[in-house]
């Protein structure tokens, strides 16, 4: 051996504070996290300067995707079971015919009069189906509803 190995000094770092902080963060994230709701179809939201926050409970969402297909979703599982049948209660939203939408909206509102209506359309969704949906909303006397958008910077 030509070289003499340097003797390493063993040292210990107290990890306790770091672990404490990590646990604290973990608890925080576990408490506050909300999982992105599963969606039946991918939606790219249009941008606007509107500042009203989206309500989270007691909502029903009418979704129109890029191809102009309509979906209806409600947040409560019991209501879903009533509207779409017991076997579909775990699905967040169901594709509905625009003719069936009329009756489903009325039924949903009878079950839960507090329901607020959200219209969620894809940026590139054709306006035709949207107009039909707005027309149906007018027919079932939902005159106040929200359009979901993404906040546009500047």
């Amino acid at each position, binding site marked *: 051996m030509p070289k003499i190995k340097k003797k390493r000094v063993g040292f210990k770092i107290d990890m306790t504070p770091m672990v404490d902080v990590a646990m604290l*963060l973990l608890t925080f994230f576990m408490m506050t996290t909300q999982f992105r709701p599963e969606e039946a179809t991918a939606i790219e939201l249009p941008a606007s300067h509107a500042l009203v926050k989206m309500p989270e409970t007691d909502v029903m969402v009418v979704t129109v995707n890029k191809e102009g297909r309509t979906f209806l979703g409600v947040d409560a599982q019991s209501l879903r079971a009533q509207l779409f049948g017991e076997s579909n209660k775990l699905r967040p939203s169901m594709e509905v015919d625009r003719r069936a939408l009329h009756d489903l909206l009325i039924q949903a509102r009878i079950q839960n009069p507090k329901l607020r209506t959200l219209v969620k359309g894809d940026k590139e969704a054709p306006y035709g189906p949207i107009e039909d949906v707005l027309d149906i909303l007018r027919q079932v006397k939902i005159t106040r509803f929200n359009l979901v958008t993404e906040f546009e910077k500047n």
Partner: protein
Amino acid sequence: MAAVESGGESRSHARAGKKHKKKRRLSIRIDMTPMVDVAFLLLTFFMLTTYFSKPQTMELNLPPDEKSQVEVAESNLLTIRVAPALTRDPSGVKIAEVFWNIGTEPANRIEQKDLRKFLTDKNKENPKLITLLKIDRDGSYDMLIKLMDIVALAKVERFSLAQMTLYDKRQIEKARGS
């Protein structure tokens, strides 16, 4: 790493003379490393999956019935019509073309970026003005949102949505031709 030690050993012989023999405590060392590893794993998972930005919404009030028509003087009715332009932009997205007219006057073209100022000015000129928005069925949802956003930014409160009829389409064609 993090470890817990129980320091019970030192006093075990302090009261050896007593009748009742105290149970001897064993010093326990728990290795916390796996737990901390899992905790970190979970922490990373939650940090990556959580999302804070909630989507915003735009509130819209529509008149309850189409039958309940309101009589408006022609000079107080500003119609904004939006239709997709004949040519698309290179990426294939529909471009909105905006036309305006008051009453039954012929329609005029206006650039979308000038619309906000235009609406503010018109409403200042005539506070009784009612804006009617008509969007072509061939247009996109984005056009509606953009238009309503502009209307909201221009602080126009008296507006309504209406269907685009054949008459409206002819007006647009005329405006394009001129």
